[in-house]
């Protein structure tokens, strides 16, 4: 009897040990793709209120705590009105996307665009909305129908429409054909617009360039050189500094660059690299203009996290610090940082 019991205990111990080895082997897996919902974790507390997105949901980030304020149903690319009382957010679906007005707590107030159509070809995209400085208009990227009738051309152009239901949209820019079009509009206080244009050189290389257009339909000025491959411009609240993402021909990493800017003349001052050797994306200034938030992986190949860096030209890349560690934020949605 004792012999049987001893064998049973030994077998049980062996099974337990084998199972333990199995679990330990599994625990040694990399954390590739492992990320949690923002609302189930915390980050470093930052001043003011921020909005970010993950997997089609909009999150408010305040005092180091995330709060999910919409469902997981395609919400992306939020932007806030100048007074902070409204958000304009993209609702993305298969084949089309629309712009909606949301309250700061995530309640839908109005649908601004209606891009869904019965035929696949009749659908349209609306992306990257930004309020005008007075809050009455919204600028965004829209895939207008090709004026020459090509059904294959789907280049985005910058359009402007009222920030309320009704009213028509007017086109601001004329994109280079078959480049994908114009993106990242940033309306200026004086009435002009910053945006990113794409071009293909005679060696078939794609470049991006930040441009300033003083008024609708004007040719505009190039603020950056094609070789810099800069895009995703963000302006400081006083419009004297510009933060942008530049890749200098690389398709593996980007730089976060800060420069002074004169939005009247379109002249950019000395460019300071605040972050390098990473996949930095989506810069946004804090309401006081002292800090820049951006998104980048903490580890090579990892999901995008929230970071901040002082908005000063002398800041070294080492001054950048991650605010989150294990969330996978949507790097196409620049953080919205408001008072």
């Amino acid at each position, binding site marked *: 009897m004792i012999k049987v019991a001893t064998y049973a205990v030994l077998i049980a111990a*062996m099974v337990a040990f084998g199972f333990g080895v199995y679990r330990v082997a599994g625990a040694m*897996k990399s954390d590739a793709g492992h990320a949690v919902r923002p609302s189930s974790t915390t980050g470093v507390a930052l001043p003011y209120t921020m909005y970010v997105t993950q997997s089609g949901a909009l999150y408010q980030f305040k005092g180091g705590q995330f709060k999910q304020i919409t469902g997981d149903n395609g919400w992306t690319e939020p932007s806030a009105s100048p007074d902070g009382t409204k958000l304009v957010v993209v609702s993305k679906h298969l084949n089309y996307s629309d712009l909606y007005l949301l309250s700061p707590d995530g309640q839908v107030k109005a649908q601004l665009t209606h891009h869904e159509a019965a035929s696949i070809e009749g659908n349209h995209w609306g992306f990257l909305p930004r309020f005008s400085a007075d809050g009455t208009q919204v600028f965004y990227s829209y895939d207008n129908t090709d004026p020459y009738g090509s059904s294959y051309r*789907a280049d985005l152009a910058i359009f402007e429409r009222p920030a309320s239901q009704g009213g028509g949209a007017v086109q601001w820019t004329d994109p280079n054909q078959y480049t994908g079009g114009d993106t990242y509009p940033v309306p200026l206080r004086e009435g002009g617009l910053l945006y990113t244009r794409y071009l293909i050189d005679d060696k078939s290389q794609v470049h991006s360039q930040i441009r300033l257009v003083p008024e609708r339909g004007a040719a505009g000025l190039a603020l950056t050189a094609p070789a810099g491959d800069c895009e995703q411009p963000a302006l400081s609240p006083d419009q004297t500094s510009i933060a942008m993402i530049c890749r200098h021909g690389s398709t593996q990493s980007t730089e976060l660059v800060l420069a002074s800017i004169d939005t009247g003349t379109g002249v950019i001052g000395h460019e300071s690299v605040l972050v390098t050797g990473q996949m930095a994306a989506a810069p946004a200034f804090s309401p006081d203009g002292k800090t820049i938030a951006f998104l980048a992986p903490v580890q*090579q190949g990892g999901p995008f996290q929230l970071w901040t860096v002082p908005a000063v030209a002398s800041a070294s890349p080492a001054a950048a610090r991650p605010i989150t560690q294990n969330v996978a934020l949507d*790097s196409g949605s620049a953080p919205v940082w408001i008072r």
Partner: protein
Amino acid sequence: MLAGLLGLTAYFLPLFQSSATPLQTSGGGLLNPISGPTQPFTVLLLGSDDDTKFAQDQYNTQSMILVRVDPANKQATMLSIPRDLWVPIAGQGYTGKIDTAYQKGGVDSAIATVQNNFHVHIDDYVWIGLKGLVKLIDSMGGVNIVVTNPVMDGFYPNDLDGSNPYGYYRVALLPGPVHLDGVHALQYVRSRHGDLRGDFARSERQQQLLMAMKAQASRLSISDLPDLARAMNGEVKTSISLDRMRALFSVLGQYNGSAIHRILLGPPYTSEGWADGQSVVFPDWDRILPAVQQSFP
């Protein structure tokens, strides 16, 4: 000890099962075994649309990339071969688009066609279909890519899961650094309708994806191999043994981007034209062969 071994065996069972499934050429056996990860070797990467439009294993190879890895010098070269390149097809007795070689004569014909025309020696091959690529990337946890310009396609094939393999839907990927899952990474490397550079841009994006996968692979550990094997089982064909694959990942993990030389055969290496009523790409071998011989000695 025995219990521990049993636990490890259970964990790595998918890996052993994958090893037992065909990971060989249609002719059987390894093409040309290499002695280890210190000798340079060349791999032909083949990617096919393997949806229900095509008969089982009679696919065109929409993507053909020749990769030479030099472990000792930590150098690698990627050469994208245009799918419409007009060449003699090995063993089939006709001249046609190079992407038809696999369809007509299987992997042996695809390899021989590349070897004969480019005057290179191929040690191994990897073939992957649409779902295989999606599963592979998902099992790696996705990839990080810098999208250089908006990728807009109003006629992207809806053939991954749809009942109509000729259906389509609209794709829009905005520029900037992004984390892509398998489906969106496939969209990135497969889209071509809205880009002035057509298949050339697609080849460039395919090389970019390989670089991103290399970066992602460097984060993986041996404990991730069962998941990868489970994901690839039946979706990937290769002559590379899993041991060598692991060594390859290990080697690639030590490479940085600047050590990887990328070659695209756009103009002046090739020119677009018409042959047999088809839009094709004509090679200028006087330009191509010296460049290939330099990178694939």
